[in-house]
């Protein structure tokens, strides 16, 4: 447990000290959302209708942008060899790093979303629901993204390849996240059903993704 917390604490400290990466992710999110009204025109009804989905897509893209280096730094400076020679199973190392990624990148992006929503005429009273659903979805994004980061590790800068590989796996999260949001904004159906499915997806990712990512790392290193 000490070793698990050690990795978690170190990765949070590194993420906060290397502040540039978080700035890039937030800036990317801002730019993606900001250019949308420019392309679509100032139709407030249209913007409001699509705002939830657009904010979710922006969140996925910005998270992916920051996760491709999840293992790369540790590989380059030799830490990964030492991490893999410790007593802590690789699965738990992956989990600790994914949790740290969620706390350092996912959470700020989620909290930033309602602010960006202003540009899309997103109804402010629903900001709580937006943050809530995203806070359920974002850990899943970090954990599933870790699989992609592990798979694309030997490619070096695998950013685009990572997006190509992992975006399809985010589709269920996107669908149920936006469905929860729309239902609670007065759309048809109850918000509880998609919210529960979203939660189930997140919990499934938390349990399964560390095994997949650890397997991907082992195959590459021990092969």
């Amino acid at each position, binding site marked *: 447990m*000490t*070793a698990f*917390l*050690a*990795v978690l604490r*170190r990765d949070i*400290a*590194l993420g906060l*000290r*290397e502040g540039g990466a978080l700035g890039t992710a937030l800036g990317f999110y801002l730019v993606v959302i900001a250019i949308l009204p420019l392309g679509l025109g100032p139709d407030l009804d249209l913007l409001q209708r699509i705002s939830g989905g657009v904010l979710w897509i922006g969140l996925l893209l910005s998270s992916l942008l920051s996760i491709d280096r999840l293992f790369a*730094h540790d590989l*380059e*400076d*030799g*830490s990964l*060899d*030492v*991490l*893999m*020679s*410790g*007593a*802590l199973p690789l699965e738990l190392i992956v989990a600790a790093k994914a949790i740290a990624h969620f706390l350092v990148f996912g959470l700020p992006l989620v909290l930033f979303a309602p602010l960006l929503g202003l540009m899309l005429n997103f109804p402010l009273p629903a900001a709580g629901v937006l943050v809530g659903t995203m806070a359920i979805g974002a850990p899943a994004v970090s954990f599933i993204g870790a699989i992609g980061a592990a798979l694309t590790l030997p490619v070096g800068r695998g950013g685009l390849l990572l997006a190509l590989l992992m975006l399809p796996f985010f589709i269920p999260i996107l669908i149920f996240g936006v469905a929860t949001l729309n239902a609670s904004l007065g759309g048809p159906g109850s918000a509880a059903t998609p919210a529960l499915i979203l939660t189930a997806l997140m919990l499934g990712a938390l349990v399964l993704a560390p095994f997949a990512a650890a397997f991907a790392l082992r195959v590459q*290193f*021990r*092969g």
Partner: protein
Amino acid sequence: MADEGAPIVSALAVSGLSCHRGGHAVLENVTFRVAAGDVVLLIGPNGVGKTTLLRAIAGLLRLSGGEITLEWRDAVSDPPPTRAFMHVFGPQNALKPTLTVRENLQFWQRFLGEEADAEAIAAALDAFRLDDLADLPVSVLSTGQRRRAGLARLIAVARPLWLLDEPNHGLDAASRRSLGDAVRAHANAGGMALIATHSEIDAGPVRRLQLGVEATDNALGDGVDARAGMLA
């Protein structure tokens, strides 16, 4: 893993070890034994498999044959995983540039040793003359200073088997002496060290393990018989 309950390692035994990289055999049928208190220098030309051997022992590579076992001083009914008894020190230093030297060592203590131990860190800093640099971020250190900060992990966390890959690289004469002293102290305390190097390490009496004794001059290593011969 230096707590009282941990069994004490008396030897590392490698028997019939074979390892393939990219479809060709790098190591074939390597057999040797390192007993407690031994310092073994792995020597041999480039590409003969020194790094591969160290990584294989550390469990970072898949073996295509053979066995790597630790022998215990007392009978152990349920042997813990061997990787918990080894230090891997490779060409990179396993340091985070934005953390200070002390924070890096504290992290490795918590990760590898399960507890932070300020005394061991002080000893490690002292052994590699890092006292003045302890609270500087690693990013501002020179190449040799980083190397020393990386080596300090070996002392900050006590583990019986050191697997060092070119530890001398980038070190000046004084730092090489520090390294030699650290290895000698480790061996005198009953530890083991397996060191791949092209230069000498002044660590008292050492044994030499020559890889590829029947090697041809083929630079790609095709047909190299990497049987290991223990000299001296």
